[in-house]
């Protein structure tokens, strides 16, 4: 029976789709049979990020409408035989998602895959609820800036209210992924540090991903950063994926904390 992860955020543009793509590839690299589903109906993007946009024939709305079955709509990745992808439609609107049909789809996926990632749309409408309903865990993607953190708190507050698992008295895992950390700004105390974000949101840290210009290049070419061996963000996603697969990996030192130097240490004494 597979494990379902909903990848959510309050605010848009924080890197949900990038995270979904990279973690799906990462867990597939770890040998888990993985599927990643784009739930952002009407704004499909995951296909581009994965470089699979030319392979989409059927999407999730065709499954909802009964025009295609799951095996017809699933797209197998060329590079990794463990990785499959289910696209969102670019045209139809969110109302095609019906709760019973979504449940049926997710049950099917759980039977056939080890790891199921649901790339949620931003905010709290439509597709977001569908990804929460049947998720075993949620991964909340946040950037170290005020609006993203505030909106994340709002969605975290909604998870238990919307989750079937929570209603049945079980615990839904809530994990935080801090994306786009700028070590220089952290060093200068001009960006909110991880510990402070965890203080405010009180959720479990899953991982930290540094700002990395290669993410743009990766989306340009449809080759996610986790496949770029020299990319810092890619390395972080690799480690987070291993963590998701149960490996005990120490947290990424993206903030470069020890490089304070002698003056920093002396200053520390006088605080």
């Amino acid at each position: 029976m597979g494990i379902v992860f909903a990848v959510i955020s309050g605010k848009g543009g924080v890197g949900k789709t990038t995270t979904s793509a990279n973690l799906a590839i990462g867990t597939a690299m770890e040998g888990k049979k993985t599927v990643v589903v784009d739930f952002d109906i009407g704004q499909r993007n995951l296909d581009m990020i994965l470089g699979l946009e030319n392979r989409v024939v059927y999407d999730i709305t065709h499954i909802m409408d009964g025009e295609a079955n799951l095996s017809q709509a699933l797209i197998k990745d060329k590079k990794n035989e463990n990785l499959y992808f289910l696209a969102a439609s670019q045209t139809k609107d969110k109302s095609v998602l019906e709760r019973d049909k979504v449940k049926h789809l997710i049950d099917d996926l759980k039977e056939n895959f080890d790891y199921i990632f649901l790339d949620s749309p931003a905010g709290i409408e439509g597709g977001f609820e569908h990804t929460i309903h049947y998720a075993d865990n949620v991964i909340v993607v946040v950037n170290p800036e005020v609006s993203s953190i505030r909106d994340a708190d709002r969605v975290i507050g909604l998870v238990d209210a919307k989750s079937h698992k929570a209603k049945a008295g079980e615990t839904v895992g809530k994990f935080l992924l801090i994306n786009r950390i700028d070590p220089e700004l952290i060093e200068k105390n001009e960006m909110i540090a991880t510990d402070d974000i965890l203080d405010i949101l009180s959720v479990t840290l899953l991982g930290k991903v540094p700002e990395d210009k290669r993410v743009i290049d990766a989306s340009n070419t449809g080759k996610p950063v986790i496949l770029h061996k020299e990319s810092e963000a890619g390395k972080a996603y690799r480690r987070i994926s291993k963590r998701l697969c149960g490996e005990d990996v120490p947290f990424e030192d993206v903030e470069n904390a020890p490089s304070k130097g002698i003056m920093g240490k002396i200053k520390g004494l006088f605080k």
Partner: protein
Amino acid sequence: MSFFDRFFGKEKKKSAGVAKDRLMIAIAADRENSRIPNLDQMRAEIISVLEKYISIDEIEISKERKGDMDMLEIEVVVKSTG
């Protein structure tokens, strides 16, 4: 403000600390506003009362604070008969 910060004239508080303080206050207020005990039950009861008289499409309940006044806003969308 540490001794050294003062010594080197760094009087201004760094913005990460300002962000944290502002967030703590904003989020505490958000949480307070979104917290109504037994909201689901209240919603269900309101719906059952209203449905004796009209058909309802949607009901939205939100809590708001205006100045020192707490307001509970209940928005009911009535099913169109057309």
